[in-house]
């Protein structure tokens, strides 16, 4: 419960604050909360991976980009208010519909099954056997993403020199 509140607060402030860096800090709070939720759901590996990837990598990455493109949020254009209202209304509607769907669904009423003692070893085995091909593809994707990101970001290096 506390975790949920923490997470939601973090996320909400991440979206709400005006200063981009504050947003990122709040975001890390939210990520940590989600990770804690994973831990609560006995998914240790995923939770810690979440912290490592998001807090350790993504957040820092975002911070770097913010540092490189640092501007305070630009002044509100004429339609800012309408943008704000429409956006929030749509989002709220989405939430309402989803919540309704969840409440109606029958799947959500069952209780907690006994804890599955998932060790990291099992995950590794699964990755190496049943999910080998996805794993390979993932590696390929990550490599491609790495190169692509470098190329895109460093594209104009010679111009800058």
């Amino acid at each position, binding site marked *: 419960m506390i975790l949920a509140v923490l997470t939601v607060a973090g996320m909400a402030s991440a979206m709400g604050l005006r200063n981009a860096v504050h947003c990122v800090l709040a975001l890390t709070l939210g990520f940590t909360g989600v990770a804690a939720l994973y831990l609560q759901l006995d998914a240790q590996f995923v939770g810690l991976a979440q912290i490592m990837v998001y807090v350790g990598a993504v957040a820092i990455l975002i911070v770097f980009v913010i540092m490189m493109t640092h501007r305070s949020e630009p002044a509100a254009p004429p339609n800012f208010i309408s*943008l704000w209202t*429409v*956006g929030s209304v*749509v*989002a709220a*509607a*989405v939430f309402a*519909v*989803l919540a*309704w*769907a969840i409440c*109606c*669904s029958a799947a959500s009423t069952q209780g907690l099954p006994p804890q599955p003692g998932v060790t990291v070893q099992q995950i590794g085995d699964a990755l190496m*056997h*049943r999910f*080998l*091909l996805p794993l390979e593809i993932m590696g390929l994707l990550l490599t491609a993403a790495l190169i692509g990101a470098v190329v895109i970001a460093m594209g104009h290096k010679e111009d800058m020199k």
Partner: protein
Amino acid sequence: MTWIIKNLWLVPALPILAAAISALLRRRDRIAAATLAVGSMAASFLLSICALLHVLTSRGGNPIHTFNFRWFQFGNEWLKLGWMLDPLTAVMLVMITLVGLLIFIYSLGYMDHDENFTRFFCFLALFAGAMLGVVIANSLLLLFMCWEIVGLTSYLLIGFWYNKPEAAAAAKKAFITTRIGDLAFLLGMVWLYAKTGTLLFYDGGAGCLENSALTHLVAQSTAIGLTASTGIALLIFCGAAGKSGQVPFHVWLPDAMEGPTPVSALIHAATMVAAGVFLIARAYPLMSAHAGFPYTPTIALQVVTWVGAITALFAALIAVAQFDIKRILAYSTISQLGYMMMGLGVGGVAVGTFHLITHAFFKSLLFLGTGSVIHGCNGEQDIRRMGGLRRHMPITFATYAVGMLALCGFPLFFSGFWSKDDILRSALTWSVSRAPFYMGAFGALLTAFYMTRQVFYVFGGRARLAESSRNILHSSHAAGSAHASALPRESPTVMTVPLVILAAFAMLLGFMGTPAWPWFQSFLDGTHTTFAVSAFSGLAVLPVMVSSSILVFCGLGLGWAFYGHKPIQHADDLDELDKLQPSIFNFLGHAFYLDALYGATLIRWNTWWSKVCDWLDRWVWNGAVQSVSFCVLGIAHFDDFFDASVVNSGFDEGCQGVSRSGQILSLLQDGQVQSYMRIIGCALIVLVLYLLWGAKA
């Protein structure tokens, strides 16, 4: 001895390992690279000897030993790889490793001056490893991988002197041409996997070359009426044809001669181009999978035969009129490959493979001899500028003569005779048609002829090298011509010794497969054999032998008549044939001039036809046309009026309407990401609502 089956992977692994290490070496430690390559090659030669011995000792029982393992799992099924050891594999292994070893040693001398010595040996070793992998592969997938590596290394080696533009171009050409074939090969592989669910050749009854799968394949038939097996076989044959330069795809092989000569010998004469033939031999059960009536060859085999026969004749014709010493051999290689394909088609695995093996030896011998010649002439490749080398390089001449006689199929003492004779004999008894036999026979005649021509040009006559001022331009490696002396000289021992060894093999190998004692064939077929002179009196044995030897003699005689008895005087003399039949000669010289040929015929035909049409026009059609034209004019006027008044206006209206609506619609596209996302959100809401509705109702 069974450990050899477990450890057969070492045979290709060693050269590849050597290649990997020498890839890490720096350019200047040449010794290390050479030692690595040659040593690994020698080691795998010994291993393959062991393999051969093992196969020999374990005759009688199941001749095919396989070792399969799981590679990796995707979804819930495993992809399996494996290697196999059967007579074919063993023979190929020994052949490749032996020839490869000799060529490696040879290129120690040949590439001595090259500054990329290390890289060269790295590539060579990699190639050898991949080739051996092709041979031992028990899985079509593994075979395909090694096949591709082979293609890659051939690309790298053809373009080894990549600063020569034509070398680079040739490399590209070779790579792309073979790719076309490999694409078909890949398709066939995928098709096969889809049908049989395995790519292993032999898997204890579950393999794709074993009866269960084959019957399954034969049973199914495709849209165009071919059985699935035939379709797959044809696709695979495309790959094979691409690799071993059969007629549609032969264009890359002559250009591939831009590479260093040892490469031409190893890759484009002995091993790689034979890989295609090997592939057909390996997939022979698939090729010959017949739907019931076994006595007519399958469509696949017929295709193989015809393509082979055509190639054999066609390439032999072209070879007659070439002047580049290596191109002559290239075309003869193509035609010999055609023979092999034909042999496979008409006579089965044994016949084709026998010619493959013998050809590998004498053709690499020829190429190495060529290399030695070129080396001696400081990179001169034009046979008109050589001549008289008989005196300057005797060893080369002797060995070259052996190779040449073997290639011509000089009776009784040379391997080429027996293997070619074998092919011709089975072609004669082919049930479908006799044409391949005649084409093959004529090809044999031509072969003898052009080889004689080449030999007389190169070794006979008086030395014309002195007058060649362009040898620097021709020189394939600058370092070679650095210490260029006008007089040709014999090559170093490290180059001549392999020549001698190969020559010995080129002579002796033939006796493995004489009709009297068809040891080789029976070894491949797994049957037992005995020595029997009486076999000569068998069906069409002696006649074929006699006829083919007569053909050979005719060829030799013709060659002598043209080039021998009156030695060529000057480099710029016209070729004898050229004097005799300039048109035909040029025509062949430019590899059938295909475009010009079409041009000539079509145009002549056209002119004639146009004359006829002209007459018809003038006296028959004209009146009719006149009358018709008036009606047309009338209609045209009416149309014009109709357009102007009716269609145009309506059409304009339509255009305006479209553009207006476009403008209106484009308001939606305001380029704001977030408005798009807003719409997405609304769509999501609608979707969920719809799903809920569905759930409720």
